[in-house]
């Protein structure tokens, strides 16, 4: 846990989640500062949703845009009945969505998944940090997008 937190702090420093890229000599990106971000994300599921997720998936979790150019809805999303589904995407990213392992701790990832699955859907089996560790070890492929849902 301690190790993970150190990694998370270090790599959340810049633009989303690309800490490795910044070590690359060819990398260049217009960004405001090199500084390590000290903007704190909440540990509470609803607040994490409001601070991070709703910037794309919208406050009502119904997604946004039109078919062909949209953020998928998280509310009423049948794919989330599988509790590993959202976990894999948060751990590994998919399409235009980045992985969030650089920005959120594992307890934060579990908390926000439980909020999304319980509040915007009716799935109440709990995602735990142990689940996230299991997925990391198994390293399953990223599931297909259900962006049209």
């Amino acid at each position, binding site marked *: 846990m301690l190790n993970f937190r150190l990694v998370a702090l270090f790599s959340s420093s810049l633009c989303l989640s690309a800490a490795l890229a910044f070590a690359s000599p060819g990398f260049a990106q217009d960004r405001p500062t090199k500084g390590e971000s000290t903007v704190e994300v909440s540990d509470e599921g609803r607040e994490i949703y409001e601070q991070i997720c709703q910037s794309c998936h919208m406050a009502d979790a119904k997604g946004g845009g039109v078919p062909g*150019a949209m953020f998928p809805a998280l509310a009423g999303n049948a794919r989330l009945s599988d509790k590993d589904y959202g976990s894999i995407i948060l751990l590994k990213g998919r399409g235009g969505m980045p992985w969030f392992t650089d920005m959120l701790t594992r307890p934060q990832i579990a908390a926000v998944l439980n909020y999304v699955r319980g509040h915007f859907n009716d799935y109440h089996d709990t995602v735990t940090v142990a689940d996230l560790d299991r997925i990391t070890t198994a390293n399953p492929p990223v599931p297909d997008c259900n962006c049209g849902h």
Partner: protein
Amino acid sequence: MFDQFNAPTRRDLLSMIGKVGGGAAMYQAMTVLGHAAESQFTGPPQLSGARPGASVLVLGAGLAGMLAAYELTKAGYKVKILELQDRAGGRNMTIRGGDTVTELGSVQKVNFAPGNYLNPGPWRIPHHHRTVLHYCKALGVELEPFFQLNQNTLIHRKDAFGGKPQHLRDMSIDYKGHVSELLGKALNAGALDKEVTAEDKAKLLEAMRSWGVLDKNMKFTKSDKVADQRGYERAPGGGVNGAPIPNDVSSLPDMLSSKVWDLMGFYSEYVMQGSMFQAKGGMDMIGKAFQARVGKMIRFNTRISKIAQDDKGVTATWVDAKTGAAGETKADWMVCTIPATILGQIDMQVSDTKKAAIKALPYGNSVKIGLEMKRRFWETDYAIYGGHSFTDQAIGLISYPNSKFFSEGPAVLLGAYPFGVGAYMLAGMTPEKRIETALKQGAVFHPAEYRAEYLSGASLAWSRMPWILGCCATWSEESRAAHYQDLVSMDGRIVLAGEHCSYYGCWQEGAMLSSLDAISRLHTKAMSA
């Protein structure tokens, strides 16, 4: 060729090499001679002699797309551009009074005074971004200085100096002073005797004394000499009270709490060094200049639903976003500049490896907020002319305008420019809440004036832009290794271009270099087909 009694000048040589070997040879020669290693730009592409009637369909009227259209037309191709928005320029845009910002979930009417603006996307051009600078000059886009580094700007850290902002100048000078004193101590204690020779030790001690402005005991303390760098309690003047009084230096722990090295590192980065420029009147002057050349080729409000190709040509199937009318546009070749966030959702006939590359490219997020103030209090009350004041709050920084110094009347500050967590937080807020947050957080720098002088504000969250759903592509070393070449490769009759297809991600230079590379390969293939 040369006067045999006079050695050729470097310029003569380069000119000759350029004539004989073309731009690539000249670039190589310039590199050998110690010039031009800062850019891969070798001048506009020398494409010519397109086959009669050959056509290219360009998807996207951002800088990459319009540059492709501009150069391909000069080479003799018939070009058509399809654009989703009702405007050209892509992320090259400027928001002014009277404009409307339409995001997913909100619409803002912008109330800035005439002449004031916010560049929500690109806003600064480094001196070595030769492609952008070349086309600005060629197309008559007037550039003016962008004040990147200003030592009189401020640093705010919640946990430093009780939250009181400090001047970048003071922290930088205290940093080198304290580090010099410590290194001097280590050297004098013999701690580095195994690392450096006696001769280098003497040089280093002299360097620390001079660079760190240390006193005769090798201490960094308040003194007239330090004040000559750091500033004064009472500045030098004339007459009876002309003598300056030095100000206090900060303690080592206080200086460390400012984390000033972050900013010193930031300003040391290659892409963040001066000189820098901005387009006079707004960055969208570049997009407008291209549009003046290729605007007639653009079909606006055109949403691509399918991209297909066969051995005869390419077909883009589309729907008119305003009328709902459906259509198809065909051509021999295609340059596709649609961002990966959108392209990954379009049915596209390319190889599985290219599809995988498109879908393995997440986009970063960013937000910019413009705050119009009644007067330039940062100039009149703080002597800050351009530059950035950084904070560790969600807004990331505020930045001061780079033009119309000393003028009366309202001016627009950049009130927020975060990536990462701060950007997500601001993007998820309503536009009103963003402004409120920007006013509250930015007020740490100018507490007496910030709210009192506020007139109006506008914001743009890139994740909420329906035509891109993000700011720009985020590569990692792993994803570059796995997918970059697949993304940029020519796939049958289709080639992709844009900042995401470059190693200058998130910069206009990357979009334009990518475009020039893409059309050069397209032309070679078209000529050999």
